[in-house]
């Protein structure tokens, strides 16, 4: 498998887009993967599921706006250069 840096960038953009699309209220709570259904006790170490949910939530919050710009640039470049 020969990776170029371009392949890595593509994979990262696709992955972050995938995480940003998961809506917590409409989608994840149907599977029990929203934050309010998984409130941990006080002083207890959070488990893997809670950590994953918080990670996805922070990625969504941080990357919403930059992803708009990055996706727009990608679309323009792909239209122009294939």
């Amino acid at each position, binding site marked *: *498998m*020969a*990776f*170029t*840096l371009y*392949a*890595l960038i593509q994979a990262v953009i696709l992955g972050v887009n995938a995480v940003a699309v998961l809506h917590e209220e409409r989608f994840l709570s149907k599977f029990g993967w929203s934050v309010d259904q998984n409130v941990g006790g006080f*002083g*207890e*170490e*959070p488990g*893997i599921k809670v*950590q*994953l949910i918080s*990670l996805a939530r922070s990625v969504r919050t941080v990357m919403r706006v930059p992803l708009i710009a990055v996706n727009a640039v990608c679309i323009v470049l792909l239209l122009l250069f294939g």
Partner: protein
Amino acid sequence: MDLSHHGHRATKPRARTGPPAGDPMLFDDTSSGGPQVPNQGYYNSAYNISGPSGGGGGPAMNNLFADPMANAAMMYGSSIADKGKDIVNKELSRFVSVNKLKYFFAVDTKYVIKKLVLLMFPYTHQDWEVRYHRDTPLPPRHDVNAPDLYIPSMAFITYILLAGMALGIQKRFSPEVLGLCASTALVWMVIEVLAMLLSLYLLTVHSDLSTFDLIAYSGYKYVGMIFTVLCGLLFGSDGYFVALAWSSCALMFFIVRSLKMKILSSLSSDSMGAGASAKPRFRLYITMATAIFQPVIIYWLTSHLIR
């Protein structure tokens, strides 16, 4: 010694803040082991030398810069260069903490030799604990267990050159292949570091492994790769597999012993209840997964060079 370390790690992980710029511990040349020559002596003699020669060269230099335009242009150019350098430094220090990076390159010859021997033959080394000095980790030149970034970066470049040479010997060389090899190795390293960071975050392991530490530990496999490729080139396919087995075992042992100190012994102080029973198991899994990944990636990245 262990109790004091647990006491330190109970709080948040210690940042590897760099010492101020004038700290003699980082960049003095200690490889000779002789008496420390103070730096001020060198600076004074340099200034003395430049003083008289500056006076002697004064009348001669005046002829060169009699043209005021050239003089003004040179001053302008040097001020622009200084401003550019300041801007680059400021922007760079926003993304990468330069002081922390300097810590990883504070190596000397003795450390490099000892570390290379340790990477190839770690079975006789007794003490794997990273030593501290007043709450900050010792730089690599004073502690052979400390991770550094010099060996991984040099080994990476050597691996790329060696790959080019191996392909050239087999008449399969073209300049694009070199770039492809380099970016493949880099991408695999990025994937490995991201996977390590993700698993350490998900299992709330409060170790003081920073990103640079993980890059360092994941870059040590390039030394094994270079050794494997060299043996494959010199001794053919059999030599390749023997060297692969040897360097895989050595690297797995090295990684497990080094990471065991950092991951498995950094239990936080309040997880003494039932949750603690699940933790050491997962931390063991992380360490073993990292160790198993090394021979796999070494084989993957070098087998196409030995046909």
